């Protein structure tokens, strides 16, 4: 069975299942997300953009833009 990374893009309330190897920064580029505008939590822990990801990880991309 092929493991796929589970990614939640919180602003769009969208869940993506994706096979990916690389860093958080690489994932943000692939998903066209500006690192200045989001925080990334891996398995509910805040991580920096150089963090290496595994396909078993659960990733949350949180928008930092003010709610208004």
């Amino acid at each position: 069975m092929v493991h796929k990374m589970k990614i939640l893009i919180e602003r769009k309330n969208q869940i993506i299942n994706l096979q990916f190897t690389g860093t958080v920064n690489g994932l943000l580029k692939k998903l066209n997300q500006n690192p200045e505008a989001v925080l990334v939590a891996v398995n509910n822990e805040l991580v920096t953009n150089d963090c290496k990801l595994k396909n078993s990880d659960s990733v949350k991309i949180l928008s930092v833009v003010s709610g208004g």
Partner: protein
Amino acid sequence: MHCTKCTNNAVYINPTFCKQHFLLYIEKTVEKTIKRHSLIQKNDHIVVAVSGGKDSITLLYILNKLKPKLSFTLAALAIDEGIAGYRNKTLVTVNDFCKQHAISLNIVSYKDSFGKSLDKFLATTHKNTKPCTLCGAFRRTLLNKYARIYSASKLATGHNLDDESQAIIMNLLRGTPQLSARLGPQTGVIEDDLFVPRIKPLYFIPEKQIAAYSFLMKFNIEYGECPYVVQAYRGVIGELLNKYEQKHQDAKKNIINLFLKNKKKLMKLSIKHEKKVNYCNHCKEPSATAVCKTCVLLENKQYI
């Protein structure tokens, strides 16, 4: 990557700190801003404008923590604009948070003050008005009025470095740079008894750092946004600045610093335009013009 102060893993880059040092850094930055810009004096009564979003909850939490050290009192004030599916949720956060931290909270609604919710205004009498124009004017009026009613010596808001740099650029692009004289860690060009001075203790902290603080503190906040924000010019500028910041680190900080260096010149320009405070002919609240913006926007002025 490791924390620059210890051997733990970093949770944030620039400043590169672990959880413990990052939280401390944010709290120290707020305290430094308060002291350096004389935002709070001993015995002040601070009313915090709170929406339930990450900025205002972070502000409320840190001020509540600093309260004994800096000898001031604190209360929270929330405005219920009446935005279905959004504000009702954030007000639950505010309520729970204030209960948990034993902070006194008052909620004032557009419906009680102006007769209708924001949703209703925009769906009926104000279909062609920009939501943020209407909401901003109403909110400013109510925050000042009720901060005064609740005996505030200062009204604290959760404006951050992103908000402020966006406002400066918006004023420049609109050809009204003199309006930026109203910005800064402590605002208000002219003093008046009916105006409650406003302070912004999160002034030097980027939005992303506040979001990280709020996440690490496990504040129960929905990271959603107002449904009307997509229509706002501010959102466009915010996105542009974030794209620019990605390539040119500290761009937003540089905008703020350049503005603060030139603020005195802007204030001189602004005072020429705003020599004295008028009082609105209709609601008697302080106003730059004979009739305040809120009353101009309200077709039926009897609600004020």
